[in-house]
């Protein structure tokens, strides 16, 4: 046969490699999707058992503030009001994001607009280093430095929302900062040039042009930070005091969804109500992280439309 014809008809090595590559990547993505689905199914089946099997009222679960799964109340229903944990989780998340945002945006502006060379040389490695520190180290520092500090100034035990906020602030700061830097760097150069050419000062350019056009990116960064704060378990558990009580001030012991989960899971029996309600809390966490993800997508899409 004609050798040229043969070589054209036969599959080349490259195309085989390509098919193989497609197959491998398809397998990988299937595996990931399956794992995610399995996790969802597992958490949901356990978490929903509280409501279907143990007959806990969903509204009660979300709005009552007495958490004592092994005790029954006057009507014979277990006392599983998760409101203190829900409030605690949202409080530390929102407060830490509030504290971290000005620092993160300020740092990002310094690194991109004011002194890019020094910023990139010094600040970037520092923030990247902060990301890499394990959360147990943050928690330990929180326990041995932040808690006594809070106790010394505000009295009480020092454990509470405030200590949790401080620790989470440091933990989410690098995430928010580096994502804000990316957002600011994505602002086209000609925006700045046009603004300066129109006679705006550097501050006016930063404030009115760069920050404005980077707003969706910065918001995404903040939501990312909040998602991380919401899901953080270990460091928060070490400093928040873990009392399933409605926080009546920032220095009284409180608890978060994650801290109750990590405290309780080893002391309960699979399949019992005490265990099921913990899975319900886990389901709540999972749903919240879904909400955060949707929020990020929503912000991203809105920002993209504006351009």
């Amino acid at each position: 046969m004609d050798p040229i014809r043969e070589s054209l008809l036969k599959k080349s090595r490259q195309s085989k490699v390509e098919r193989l590559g497609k197959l491998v990547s398809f397998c990988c993505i299937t595996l990931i999707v399956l794992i995610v689905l399995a996790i969802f199914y597992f958490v949901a089946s356990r978490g929903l058992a509280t409501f279907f099997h143990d007959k806990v009222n969903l509204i009660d679960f979300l709005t009552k503030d007495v958490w004592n799964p092994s005790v029954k109340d006057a009507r014979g229903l277990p006392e599983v009001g998760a409101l203190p944990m829900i409030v605690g989780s949202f409080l530390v998340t929102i407060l830490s994001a509030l504290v971290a945002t000005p620092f993160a945006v300020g740092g990002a502006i310094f690194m991109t607009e004011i002194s890019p060379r020094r910023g990139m040389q010094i600040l970037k490695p520092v923030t990247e280093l902060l990301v890499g520190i394990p959360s147990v180290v943050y928690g330990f520092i929180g326990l041995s430095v932040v808690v006594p500090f809070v106790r010394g100034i505000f009295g009480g035990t020092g454990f509470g929302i405030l200590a949790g906020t401080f620790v989470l602030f440091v933990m989410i700061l690098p995430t928010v900062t580096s994502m804000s830097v990316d957002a600011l760097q994505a602002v086209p150069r000609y925006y700045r040039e046009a603004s300066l050419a129109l006679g705006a000062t550097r501050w006016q350019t930063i404030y009115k042009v760069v920050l404005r056009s980077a707003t969706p990116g910065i918001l995404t960064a903040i939501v990312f930070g909040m998602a991380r704060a919401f899901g953080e378990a270990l460091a928060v558990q070490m400093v928040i005091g873990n009392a399933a009580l409605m926080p009546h001030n920032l220095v009284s012991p409180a608890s978060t969804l994650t801290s109750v989960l990590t405290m309780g899971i080893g002391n309960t029996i699979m399949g019992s109500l005490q265990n099921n309600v913990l899975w319900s809390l886990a389901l709540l966490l999972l749903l919240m992280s879904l909400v955060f993800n949707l929020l990020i997508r929503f912000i991203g899409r809105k920002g993209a439309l504006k351009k």
Partner: protein
Amino acid sequence: MKKKILTAAALLISLVGLTACQKQSSGESITAVGSSALQPLVEAAGEQYSNDHLGKFINVQGGGSGTGLSQIQAGAVDIGNSDVHAEEQNGVDAKKLVDHRVAVVGITPVVNKKVGVTNLSFAQLKAIFTGQVTNWQQLGGADLPIVLVNRAAGSGTRVTFEKWVLQGSQAKQAQEQDSTGMVRQIVAATPGAISYLAFSYVDKSIAAVKINHVAPTDENVLTNKWKIWSYEHMYTKGKPTGLTKDFIAYVLSPKIQEKVLPRLGYISISQMKVERDVSGHVTRRS
């Protein structure tokens, strides 16, 4: 590209090979899971057992009493370690499990040193932990608010303490800590704090409290003069056999009971002068 795939495949195969090898060479092994309070003892005993009996291994894992009981009930492990009686744990069918009591742990209330109280009655302790008394002055101590520090709900230490002190009343919601070490640190650092610890954790940074003028000592536990103590249980599903049986017998042997236990801060089961069942009924041991 191809090289990378090849190395990955080679790695995978060698990994599978390694795990397979491990299974073959390990001979016999059992797994004990559960209570973190009992873990040091089982670990130490397991290590000695492996030294004495080559080729036999005891894997010890923590995870909490609840984990130990649920794993042994499911038959996933060979021994479930627990600080609480299986009958006291929700969701456990105690009839299917066989209890092996291997040690005793005494638990004492501890306070911050500034509190200025060295003796309390059971009634006073109950009033403290149910929140009826809120200042140490009411108990003859310093003018400090009482700060309760609890262990996690369901932890063996807390179950035992509340069983004897609260006698069925509900504890006031207060801050909870995951580990005994953390509790000690917090009580030592927080003015007005009170909590409870196993005897072996008591040190100079905190003050142990006498109850009805009985001091928290091992001797008082042996005679049940000090009432707040608990058995450390190793549960098996059904009667133990083979290595599990040998190992439990080894833990109960004088070699471990007399040499290892006191060093680790447990009270030897063989020295106990009394026996107590799950409902708290005490009988003298002959």
